[in-house]
Each structure stands twice: as C-alpha cells, then as structure tokens.
C-alpha cells in the first residue's frame, strides 16, 4: 500500500517539472545574493556559509511543500485516498518520502557547489552534507504537519510559515552548529547524532500527527 502511494506521488511530482525546479532555483538565487550583498571576502563568507546554506535549504524546502498537498485537496483525491483504506499516516509518509527524494535530495546534491562559492572550508563539506542528510527529513516531516493543517485554508501560506518555522529553529541551530564546528576543526559527531535522533523521532511520530491533521482539514 505504501509502495503504491509513493509511486503515485513520485509520478505526479515528476510531471510537474516547473514546481520541482522552483526550490532549486530559489536556493541558487538566494545563496548567490549573499556574496553580492555582504562581502565577497573569503574570511567573512566562510563564517557565514553554514548558516546561509542551512537557511536557504530550509526555505527552499518550505516552498516545495505546497505541490504535494494543494492539488490533491482541490481535486478530491485526498478524500479518495483517505477512503481507500490506506491509513492517513501512510498517505503523509508517502508524500514526505517523495518530498525528500525529489526536493530535499537535489538541494543536498547542489549544496557542495554553492558551498564553494561561499568559501566554506573544504574540510567542512562532508559535515555539511551529513548534517543536511540527517536534518532534512525532519524538515520534510514537520512541514507535512504544517501543510496538513493548512491545506484546507484559502491562503494558508503565511500561516504555514508561522506554524512551521518555529519548529524548524532547533534543527537549524543544530545543523549550523555542526557545520561551524567542523569548519573550525572540532568534532561534530555528537551534534550529528542529535540530528539523526530528531530524524528518527519525526519519522516515527510526525506521520500520525499529520495524518490526524489531514482528516481535520478534509472535513471542512
């Protein structure tokens, strides 16, 4: 059942190339603004790089959420999915997995390129990728909760941001601390383990919360 749902999400995502590319362009454009706006100096940029990269990944992912829910809500597919016998948690999990594979993963693949532009020390590159791999699942799943709560609202965009961003902050802090620690040559393993723990926790809990929220949204 979960496999079928994931296949459906991936098929639909791949047919909406523009929406799929939007977060990537956003990531590219916004990170390019920083050297232009602040300073092209390597010393300044390398201290800013972890935070800039993490914030941009986080905002790009926030942009990618709407595609997964809005259309299904509008055309009645969400009701059909909920009535198909699949559990609401599975529906959300399938969406989040597709979201991670096709929105988060491309961002992670792109991040080394942008980290070079921001003069991130090359020793910290591994830490950046590790932190994103461990942290982005949390972002996708917390986003799924926010999206499930707001999909029924006409203009849920701002509300989604208000709901989800505070929850993103701990992940952001952990992620940037991890990359900063690595770029100063410190050990980052404890922070990475914390991020992985957050990921595991959100994979096991968030789908249930989001599934319940989805049912409420559909009932309006």
């Amino acid at each position, binding site marked *: 059942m979960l496999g079928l749902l994931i296949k459906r999400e991936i098929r*639909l995502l791949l047919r909406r190339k523009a929406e799929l590319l939007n977060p990537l362009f956003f990531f590219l454009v916004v990170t390019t603004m920083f050297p232009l706006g602040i300073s092209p100096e390597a010393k300044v940029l390398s201290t800013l790089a972890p935070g800039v990269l993490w914030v941009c990944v986080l905002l790009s992912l926030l942009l990618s959420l709407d595609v997964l829910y809005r259309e299904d809500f509008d*055309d009645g597919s969400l009701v*059909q999915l909920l*009535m198909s*016998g699949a559990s609401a948690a599975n529906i959300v999990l399938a969406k989040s997995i597709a979201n991670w594979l096709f929105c988060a993963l491309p961002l992670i693949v792109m991040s080394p390129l942008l980290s070079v532009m921001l003069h991130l020390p090359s020793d910290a590159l591994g830490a950046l990728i590790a932190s994103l791999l461990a942290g982005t699942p949390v972002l996708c799943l917390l986003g799924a909760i926010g999206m499930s709560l707001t999909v029924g609202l006409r203009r849920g965009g701002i509300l989604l941001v208000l709901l989800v961003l505070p929850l993103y902050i701990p992940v952001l802090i952990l992620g940037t601390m991890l990359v900063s620690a690595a770029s100063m040559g410190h050990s980052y393993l404890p922070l990475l383990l914390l991020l992985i723990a957050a990921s595991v926790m959100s994979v096991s809990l968030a789908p249930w919360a989001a599934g319940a929220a989805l049912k409420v949204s559909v009932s309006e």
Partner: protein
Amino acid sequence: MYSEFTLKCDNLALIRGERLLFKQAAFELTNRQVLHIQGANGTGKTSLLRVLCGIIEADEGELHWQQQPIEQTRQDFYLNTIYLGHQLGVKKAMTVEENLAFYQAMRPQSLSVSISEAIAQVGLAGFEQQWVANLSQGQKRRVSLARLLLESAPLWILDEPFVALDVKGQSWLAQHFEAHRERGGSIIFTSHQPVELACDVQKLVIGAQ
C-alpha cells in the same frame, strides 16, 4: 456476489455554521437496495453523504455498519464502499488508464473486468493514454464512473452521478445501477434529475422543517 452488509443510520442531524441543515435523517440499507436522497439546494444532501463516508462528523445521531458503531468498523466500511463526490478525485496529470489502475490497485479485490474494457464501456475507448487534463467535464465524470466497473465494493455512494453526462451516458449508468443490484450491491445517490430505474427506489427527503 457480494456478501451481506447492513448500514443503519439513526436520527442524524447536522449543523453548519449557525444553520441546522437536516435533522432526524434515518434509513436502513442492506443488499440490493437503492436509496435516493432528495431535498432542495442547500438542504445538506452532499453533507449527508460526507457524514456517511466519515469525512465530516454529524452533530447528532448514530451510524451503524454491520450492526456495529461505524467508528469501530470504519476500515471495513471503506473497503466495501466507493464514494464519488462532486470533486472526482481523478488526477489531471495522469492518463485515464493510470488513474483507474491506481484506484484498482488500492483495492484488495477487483471485479473481473480489465481496465481497457471498463474504459471502452464508459465510452472512452481510444482515450486510454490521454491526459485527464485534456478531457471534457463529462468525460472526466466517465473516468470516475469507470471505477465502479473495476473495483469490487457492494456499496456505492454517489453524489449527483448523472450531472455532466449526456443522455446516453445517463441511461447507461441507470442500467449499470441495475447490474450492480443484481450482484447484490446497493446504491445511495443524490440527483436533481428524475431518474428512471427498473427497480424499487427508497426515497429519503431531508431538510430542516
């Protein structure tokens, strides 16, 4: 042949906003029965169907599926039901065939009709590989109706199934109601158009007095 089922609805009432939509809606349904829900615009026919499907909660009253409160038997109810609402739930970005194949695969059991046969039966032969986005409103409706031919579920809950269909389509659907009844299935539907069915049709008129 479908196995026995019962759906009992007692004293349902629904309030939306400040307005009482309907109260004391009650019926009993078992195999081989057709229930036509009637009422003027805004009396809550669609809402009643959505209550039956567990999408919204009634403010009063009880629903029993197989003699048990529906909250406990919801999954079993879903496995035995096809609900087609105003929003059809067909994806514009998928082809006709993909849409039907997905819904069929989600069911544990399906009827012995192939997808291409079902598409031909609803009059969409040749459109199998077309994007649903390119179809007309009536054709989209036909795609959703093709699900009725493919998925094995004794209870159909249909919200205005005759809307957007041409005359031929309407008579085809009425005939298919009959075929479904012969297999032991039941239908709950709403319709503003008068519907000519060969079998007995129970009527439920709702609305706040």
